[in-house]
């Protein structure tokens, strides 16, 4: 029988083949609709610890679901799906699949910190939003933010050369984020610079771009540092 109130059902729970023939009987479309159950069958109690390992998420375990955060939330006033109280509950019990349903709006937190100021248990919900957004990004559930791209380019140059080159950092950042290399503000900046004719500085920048100076005896330092940073990160988030 066709299901008349499909709108009431979460779309990803409706299983349906457009074309299906069973024992010679055509049961295409609505005739083969199945609905997967809504039941939650387990918790992931360690998930809370993972979020706590990100800066800002340390106090998430204190939450008692009073709802002060959501009540006071700037974003909730705009979008009722933006519900920090609910996400904190999901994090505490490790209901990851439920949390991921909202992955594309968690980053919208504007860090006004009204929640943090009102929270009676000092959960610091704003920090939890930040920690959760970082976890989502680091695990590939949300695209990398511009600031992450910048950090990665910056870190890459530090490790590779033992120093950074401003021009190179900008170029790398633009490439990573798919932005044009020539941008209006750069042109303005160049024009302003040209007025003062800092010839020596311009020559130095040009030469550095071509020869890419490296810190003396840098050797394997970058490699060792990279390994150390990686180990530290793993220890914090998975230890």
């Amino acid at each position, binding site marked *: 029988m066709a299901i008349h109130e499909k709108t009431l059902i979460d779309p990803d729970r409706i299983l349906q083949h457009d074309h299906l023939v069973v024992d010679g009987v055509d049961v295409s479309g609505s005739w083969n609709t199945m609905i997967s159950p*809504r039941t939650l069958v*387990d918790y992931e109690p360690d998930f809370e610890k993972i979020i706590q390992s990100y800066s800002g998420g340390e106090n998430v*375990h204190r939450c*008692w679901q009073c709802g002060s955060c959501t009540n006071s939330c700037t974003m909730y006033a705009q979008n009722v799906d933006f519900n920090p109280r609910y996400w904190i509950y*999901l994090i505490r019990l490790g209901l990851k699949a439920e949390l991921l349903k909202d992955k594309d709006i968690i980053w919208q937190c504007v860090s006004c910190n009204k929640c943090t100021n009102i929270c009676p248990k000092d959960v610091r919900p704003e920090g939890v939003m930040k920690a959760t957004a970082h976890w989502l990004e680091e695990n590939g559930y949300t695209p990398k933010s511009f600031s992450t791209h910048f950090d990665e380019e910056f870190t890459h140059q530090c490790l590779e050369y033992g120093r950074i080159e401003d021009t190179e950092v900008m170029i790398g950042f633009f490439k990573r984020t798919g932005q044009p290399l020539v941008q209006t503000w750069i042109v303005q900046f160049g024009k302003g610079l040209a007025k003062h004719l800092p010839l020596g500085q311009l020559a130095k920048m040009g030469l550095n771009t071509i020869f890419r100076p490296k810190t003396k005896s840098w050797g394997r330092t970058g490699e060792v540092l990279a390994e150390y940073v990686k180990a530290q990160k793993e220890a914090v988030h998975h230890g």
Partner: protein
Amino acid sequence: MSVQDTVLVVGAGPAGLSAAATVAAMGKKAVIVEKEDVLGGAPIISGYAKLVPSGEWAKDAIGRMVSRVEGDGNVSIHKSVKVTELDGEAGNFTAHLSDGKKVEAGSIVLATGFTHFDSINKPEWGFGTYEDVLTTTQMEQMVATGQIRCPSDGRVPERVAILLCVGSRDRQIGREWCSKICCTVSTNLAMEIKELSPSTDVFIYYMDIRTFGLYEDKFYWKSQEEFKTKFVKARIAEVTKSPDGRLLVKGEDTLVKRPIVIPMDLVVHAIGMDPNVLNPEIAKVFGVGLEKHGFIDRAEQYTNSQGTTRKGIYVCGAATGPEDIDTSIAQGQSAGARAVADLFVQQKAVG
């Protein structure tokens, strides 16, 4: 021992022991009548572990109350007996005991306590069906042994679920009261479990958390923040068993608005406090009224504190409704003092 010197104290739990000690300290005679063969009441008879809020073991704390009256020349004790009949009136009571003895007293303190809710009356929650479903009382006894194990096969439980409001706040089974102490007892128990078995995760399934007064941070917050107890807002519909032998806790998670079927190794019923099953008999023997739930009714409390519906008979502790131990002890003192004051009034009248 004249009538005007004696107070009859019925029941030797925290409230009764406190009342008797108060009477004795005021220079009057207290006669304790206890139906069990040990003194101490529920904390001793049911083998409670550490008490709320002191954290002292029940046998130590209540034990001190017992030895205080046992060593007091003004207190005499009758164990394993009940009052079967009461003659006379305020100032001149005669109680007939089940062993044939008689006690004459000027006033009476009822400290007859409560009865633990019997979980068998909520069969859908698996008590009596599955070995790994226990009551808070049984769990306290397990804590007292120093080891947390599943009774079915002795394994260390990965997860324990404590279900609140078992036999409380439930019109279906005629219990329309909040038992007042189970929230605090459960959060305390969650900490004790975690302390003894650090690999065990404890989940508390609640409708509301009512850790009143100073129990809030000392028990609720502490168990959540330091002992990582998880609080899940869900009223459980049913406890069943999965093919692998673990228990399944079924219900609706109020906050996620989704049905849940979660595997657990141990399920603990936070059982409430019923009126003493003997209250109809007690009411009849002593001629006191019961309030609508079946606890002993109290007089107006502003000028007749600890009074019952009958002159000269006072009541204290969980006999009047769910009560914690500290308050029961305070009420015991209050009732003891009221009873002694009556003796002075009677002496004046006689003198």
